[in-house]
Each structure stands twice: as structure tokens, then as C-alpha cells.
């Protein structure tokens, strides 16, 4: 199953339409879309707006490939679950978000194994037409997470009421 997700806050019709038209053209019937408040009406994908975090996690666990806007939730979950993820950042100059932070996120993660950044529909289609070639994302060493937790434990130790 291929899972598309665009988050909860804003529509992302450019991505939803591109993936749906690809699914229609190639006859893929196993594409599931979490499309939030998008207004484009998919023809080939099964779609829903929003589900609970736990249900979303179940869909992500079932997915073979993830496609998502450049949201940290999607990227972190792909790394945790070891799924390849194609990331298509929202372009704020097209009104797809309040500011350009998704472009920044896409740039920061463009070298991360298993994270495939597509900055245009053409690039997205190149990945979609070569799904076999996409490696799974990895969880990394979590050394920075252990470091953050240690620092916070020290800080919490100083708190009294």
C-alpha cells in the first residue's frame, strides 16, 4: 500500500492531484490518501480527511511507501518505522503554507537515507515511476535524543514547588 499524507492544517491539492492522476494513469488501486481539508476530488485513491493519531500510525505501519508534505511528523514516523518516504514540500509562494519552513525542512533532510525530496511534480513522478529503487529510511543513532533527555533530567532535578 502507498500512503499519502498532507497533515491536518491546510489543503495540498497540488500534491493530492499529482498522486491521484499518477495512480489513475498507472492503474494503481492501493493508494490511500490522508488529504486533510484538500478540495480536489480524487478519482483513483481511497481518501479520508483526518483520523486519530493512533489510526494514522496503523496506516503508516501498513504502508510500503509513504508520500508526504515536508512535515516533521511524517518524516520522523517514516524513520521510526523504516519506510521509504517521498517528501514534497509546501510552497508558501503558492499559498500552500504560512511560511517557507517546509522548503527548509526538505533541504535539511535531502541527504538523509530513505528520505527522497521532490521539489516539483516532475521529480515526484520520477520517484513514483521507480518505487523499487527507493530504500527505507532509518532511525539513526538516537544519540542526540539521549543527550536531550540527559540534559532535561538534570533540569527537572532542579525543579521544586
Amino acid at each position, binding site marked *: 500500500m502507498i500512503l499519502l499524507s498532507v*497533515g*491536518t*492544517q491546510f489543503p495540498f491539492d497540488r500534491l493530492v492531484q499529482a498522486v491521484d492522476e499518477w495512480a489513475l494513469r498507472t492503474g494503481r488501486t492501493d493508494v490511500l490518501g490522508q488529504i486533510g481539508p484538500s478540495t480536489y476530488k480524487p478519482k483513483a485513491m481511497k481518501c479520508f480527511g483526518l*483520523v*486519530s*493519531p*493512533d*489510526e494514522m500510525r496503523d496506516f503508516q505501519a501498513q504502508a510500503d511507501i509513504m508520500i508526504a508534505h515536508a*512535515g*516533521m*511528523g*511524517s518524516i*520522523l*514516523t517514516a524513520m*521510526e518505522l523504516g519506510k521509504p518516504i517521498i517528501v514534497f514540500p509546501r510552497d508558501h509562494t503558492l499559498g500552500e503554507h504560512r511560511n517557507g*519552513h*517546509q522548503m*527548509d*525542512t526538505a*533541504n*535539511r533532510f535531502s541527504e538523509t537515507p530513505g528520505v527522497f525530496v521532490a521539489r516539483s511534480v516532475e521529480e515526484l513522478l520520477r520517484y513514483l515511476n521507480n518505487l523499487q529503487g527507493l530504500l527505507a529510511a532509518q532511525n*539513526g543513532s*538516537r544519540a*542526540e*535524543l*539521549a*543527550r*536531550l*533527555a*540527559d*540534559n*532535561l*533530567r538534570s*533540569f*527537572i*532535578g*532542579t*525543579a*521544586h*514547588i
Partner: protein
Amino acid sequence: MSENANKRVLFIASAGGHWIQLCRLAAELNYEQAHYATTLKGAKAPTGTRKVSVVPDASRSNPAKLVVLASRLTWLMARVRPHVVITTGAAPGLLAIGIAKVFGAKTVWIDSLANSEVLSLSGRMAERYADLWLTQWPHLDASLPRLRYMGSVL
């Protein structure tokens, strides 16, 4: 760790990426007295068996909802009486650490990984209320006088 076991820690974040980052951290910290709050029903606590409290989402563009959120957060603080409040954003987390200060709690703002070049607006406003004001990107460490990098959930 043992002297910390009785500390009540409230973890709060908006649903979506903010919540997912918070859960990674909370699971790593694994506090016995952890309480959780987010903005969407159906979230499972990353540790323990306590139910996740649900607070309404709100932003600066909707002042009426902000008032409802503030009263719900005040109620939550009064009920939990946290020693420490930790948030990864966004607006509800900002309001939460502001109210937490009134209750005498220590506060931690961890700016989302999504903000890799500049802090979010909530993140900048959080400086006033955060005892620890953190970015998750090493290159932003000390880019503002009080801003620190102490690790990330990556």
C-alpha cells in the same frame, strides 16, 4: 533519576508533528509521573496508563478560542500541579508555559525540528515564559542570546 521519580512532568503539544516529537522525547525520559495533553482526541500516551488530556486548538487568529483554551489549560495546571511543563509547540504549548509560570512550574520550550533556519513566531514569543529555551538544530545554538541546543529528538 531516583530523586526525579516523584516529579510531576506535564508534556503538552499540538497534534501532528509537534506531538510526535514530544512523544519521542517523553518515551526516552520515561517519567513515572508524566501527564500528557494534546489537541486531538484518540492520542495514546507514550508512557504509562494515564489518559491523554485533550485541549482545544487555537491560534492568534481566533481570540475567542484562545480564551477557552486558556481556561482549560488553567484547569489542567490546577489539577496536575506539575513541577515541570515541557512543550514542543505550537500556540497551545506557548500558552501552557505562560500559565505554568503563574503556578510556579519550571518550563521548557523545545522549538520544532520543522524550524531549521528561523524560530517560529510562537518559538520567539516563548522566550519570555521558558526557563529553558531550546532549538533542535545545533547551528542555531546561541543565534539568539538565550537560545540553546541541548540535543534533538532525531
